[in-house]
């Protein structure tokens, strides 16, 4: 019976195994790198053209989130405030401060400040701030203790698994609407009981919530 494989196929098979193994490890490394760095920098402050401090404005001064993020209750995007909002106070307070030079320049030239994006969901995910805020999802549930943050960073991974934690059991996270913007809110001991009542009251569709097409539309 003739040989089915030529003698050199032994070497070929060996190198294919080694090469395949190396390639597989490399692929996993690259994928893990992309998954962890650019999209998943949890807790890593993003550098900005202006060293805006949430802990001073929202913490110490106690400004409501909505003073600057005016559209969060009515639009998908919780807007970054225009320079006009900064200048409402800073036309009078700390005028000429070097830390505010970029704000003043933006105001004088009419060009927007180019803030670096902190939260960037994949474009195949539909997300709407107003839908969450009006259903009793508190700011700090996703964004953390912003009123204590000097810089700004992602507080949560924003991965699909993380989203589903709430979409599968919203009653564990919802608050009364009146507490959504309260940064000091602490969930009560009877959260599940309260949450179930809120799911009912705010018409949260728990059947639809964990389905693919809710976010991937």
């Amino acid at each position, binding site marked *: 019976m003739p040989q089915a494989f030529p003698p050199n196929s032994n070497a070929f098979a060996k190198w294919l195994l080694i090469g395949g193994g190396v390639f597989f490890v490399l692929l996993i490394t690259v994928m893990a790198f992309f998954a962890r760095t650019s999209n998943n920098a949890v807790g890593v402050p993003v550098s900005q053209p202006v060293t805006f401090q949430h802990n001073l404005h929202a913490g110490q001064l106690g400004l409501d989130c909505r003073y600057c993020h005016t559209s969060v209750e009515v639009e998908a995007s919780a807007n970054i405030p225009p320079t006009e909002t900064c200048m409402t106070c800073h036309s009078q307070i700390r005028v000429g401060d070097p830390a505010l030079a970029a704000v003043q320049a933006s105001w004088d030239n009419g060009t927007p400040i180019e803030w670096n994006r902190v939260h960037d969901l994949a*474009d*195949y995910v539909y997300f709407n701030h107003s839908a969450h805020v009006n259903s009793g999802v508190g700011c700090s549930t996703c964004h953390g203790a912003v009123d204590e943050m000097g810089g700004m960073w992602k507080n949560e991974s924003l991965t699909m698994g993380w989203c589903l934690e709430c979409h599968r059991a919203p009653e564990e996270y919802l608050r009364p609407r009146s507490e959504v913007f309260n940064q000091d809110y602490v969930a009560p001991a009877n959260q599940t009981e309260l949450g179930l009542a809120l799911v009912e009251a705010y018409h949260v569709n728990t059947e639809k919530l964990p389905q693919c097409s809710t976010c991937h539309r």
Partner: protein
Amino acid sequence: MTPRRFKARTLAFAALALTLVLSGCGRNMYDQPRAEALESSRFFADGAASQALPEGVISRERGSIDPSYFSGMGDAGFATELPFELTEEVLVRGQERYNIYCSMCHNYDGSGGGVVVQKGFVPPASFHEQRLLDSGVGYFYNAITNGFGRMYSYASRIPVEDRWAIAAYVKAMQLSQNATVDDIPEEVLENLRSTAGEVR
């Protein structure tokens, strides 16, 4: 099959597989070529994805609404009446919006010593001055819409209906700070008297 042909075919297949696998590594589905709110865009000359409305643009429904609803001005100066019915919801909404947008300067009681004033902003007048007690609701609506003195306009931040609600709340706040026992309705007073003991 000769050994040489076998090797060439396998290599070609491996190269094709590698190309297909690697082509899945792009992020072009993650960042699709669409404009997102407030992002930069190469489509418009000024580089912004979110464009301001062209000057003079008004909404379709605005044409059929009385212009005084947007200006706060009646035939004889500032309007003295709300353009819609005053309900408890309007006042509660006004209170909420006042606390968000106004309290940092005007303070929660309208006295004008809010937290931003404590940081060095020129103090605004107290709402409980005689001049402002005599001012109608349209006066406050107008100040929110067009700004006043060093106060910037809030027209881009507070919708028209909310501005009226805030103005109504300011008028209510004035009443509350200058009220006497006689202003309290009889049944509320009764209730207050009966619960006063319990509270203390």
